């Protein structure tokens, strides 16, 4: 049992590892596969996402993380597999209905609606606006009240994300990082049960990353479950409660952030993706271990020191 499990609440049942059951899962995925031509992009036998926690989905480029997100949210159809949110099956459910059921995602390539204002972007994320139907839309009186509520809610979120001064600007005028923030804030308008963020930190100005981490932690405090894909190991180590590692479409490791990096399967996963690295060489391993912030780094340095005493 990892020592960190004495400090943090135990999330899983049994030993941490790929596909380990959770005490209180919100999302359960079974044998989901997706192939492109002959290439298997996703092949997930079983995985559970713990409720009310922040789970990081990591893995080298091309591991299938985005494809997995697309499948779960109805933006792509799997070849096989089933999955359910709070016990309700989501397989075959169209993307817009998945969102309505309370599972909202953001995109790796930001999708801010450029020629709508920041405020209109936000309002679009709201639910229960009768004026979105054709006939009620014709009579302003039927939807004005709800619109005011939506606007207030949007202003509150925008203020939290420090975008309130931009509310009347076109989304196109925002910086890349601000668009990421807008997309995340917009996804929160519907008060989802589960938010799935695909690389929320990519392209975000380092000055903003700290506040972004804060936003994600706030989500958890509000009771929202978060599943995010991220390459930034600092973010993973800082805010994730649980880490799932994907490589070549499969889940290869699962565990607590403090310990999962020590799993040799994780080093293997990243090594497999570092084609330019000499697989056998310890320095290559070191490079990878440092890259992903693995606790094995120390061990490898020691090993190198033993092999080549004069290098010290």
């Amino acid at each position, binding site marked *: 049992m990892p020592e960190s499990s004495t400090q943090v609440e135990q999330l899983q049942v049994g030993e941490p590892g790929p596909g380990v059951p959770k005490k209180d899962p919100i999302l359960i995925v079974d044998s989901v596969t997706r192939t492109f031509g002959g290439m298997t992009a996703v092949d997930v036998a079983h995985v559970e996402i713990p409720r009310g926690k922040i789970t990081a989905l990591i893995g080298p480029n091309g591991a299938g993380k985005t494809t997995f997100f697309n499948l779960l*949210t109805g*933006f792509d159809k799997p070849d096989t597999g089933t999955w359910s949110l709070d016990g309700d099956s989501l397989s075959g459910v*169209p*993307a*817009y*209905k998945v*969102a*309505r059921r309370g599972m*909202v*995602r*953001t*995109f790796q390539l930001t*999708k*801010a*609606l*450029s*020629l*709508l204002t920041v405020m*209109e972007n936000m*309002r*679009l*994320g709201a*639910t229960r*606006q009768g*004026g*979105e*139907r*054709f006939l009620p*839309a*014709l009579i*302003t009186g039927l*939807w004005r009240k709800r*619109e005011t509520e939506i606007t207030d809610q949007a202003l509150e979120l925008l203020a939290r994300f420090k975008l309130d001064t931009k509310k009347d600007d*076109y989304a*196109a*005028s925002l910086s890349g990082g601000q668009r990421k923030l807008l*997309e995340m804030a*917009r*996804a929160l*308008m*519907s008060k989802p049960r589960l938010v799935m963020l695909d690389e929320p930190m990519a392209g975000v100005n380092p000055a903003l990353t700290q506040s972004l981490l804060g936003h994600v932690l706030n989500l958890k405090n509000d009771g929202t479950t978060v599943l995010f894909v991220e390459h930034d190991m600092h973010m993973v180590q800082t805010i994730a409660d649980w880490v799932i590692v994907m490589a070549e479409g499969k889940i290869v490791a699962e565990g607590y952030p403090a310990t999962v990096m020590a799993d040799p399967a994780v080093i293997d996963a990243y090594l497999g993706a570092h084609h330019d690295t000499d697989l056998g060489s310890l320095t290559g391993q070191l490079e990878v271990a440092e890259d992903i912030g693995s606790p094995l780094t120390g061990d490898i340095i020691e090993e190198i020191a033993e092999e080549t005493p004069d290098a010290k």
Partner: protein
Amino acid sequence: MDFNFITLALSQILEPQTIGYALAALGLAVHFGFTGLLNFGQAGFMAVGGYSFAITTTQFGWPLWAALAACVVGSIIFALILGIPTLRLRADYLSIVTIAAAEIVRYTVKTPDISPITGGSDGINGSSDTFNALNPLPDIQYHLGIGTYNKEQLWIRIVGWVVVIVAALVIRQLMRSPWGRIVKGIREDEDAVRSLGKNVTWYKMQSLILGGVLGGLATVIVIIPTSLQPDNYGTQTTFFLYTIILLGGATTVLGPIVGSIIFWVVLSLSDGILSLLVSNHLIPITSIQQGPIRFIIVGIALMLLVIFRPQGIFGNKREAHFSA
């Protein structure tokens, strides 16, 4: 020299053709400007709506309201036929299917086998009786400065413009509502809108229907004082409509209407100027060459407009700036 052509050009403002094109262009603006649907078959909607109205009026003797309902239902069915297989696919499928479907409609109505109903290449005359029966205007000549009209001519012009204004107000209201927010979002990125829980395919269908019905009704205005001619609903008509909305501003409500006026006035004006120059031997072309040349002039004017004012006359400069 004779400068009558200026009055003639200005009278285009009240021509049913201008009014009809304004309405059809408004429909196309709903598709292309607001929702981002690449409909290259607006002429097909115009034909389907027009034939539904003309056939039910002249062949079946339906009253005006029923024939108008047929026009609306015909346009809706056409939208469903085109939209159901294509709207869930990539955007280009809709353009291919609409451009082909519009041509299919035009060739089908010209087929000799169904000519007894559709009038074949000659089209359909006499769709105006039920409409003119409602005319409350006194039977005198009306002198309006830019032209003299009898009571029938004035009646269709008044009703036509009222229909366009009402349609414009409805579209304006819709585009300022949460419904309009969704279709504009779809224009920007439909997957983003989908991820926010909106049934994107259904909204695209609603937009296709709405713009298509406006196209169908437009033809009714055009054919009442004249006749329904199948060859007036070829691909060229759709491109005229695109010219009109790009001229006025595709993402505005006023743009398609003013665009239609400018298009027909300028076309008539350039025709007048060219005939003046030709008949006075001031330019070395024949009167036969005159027709194509005025379209060249319109084409050049449009190119200049796109270069210097890409958002159209009424478009929002910031919008065009960011989409560039």
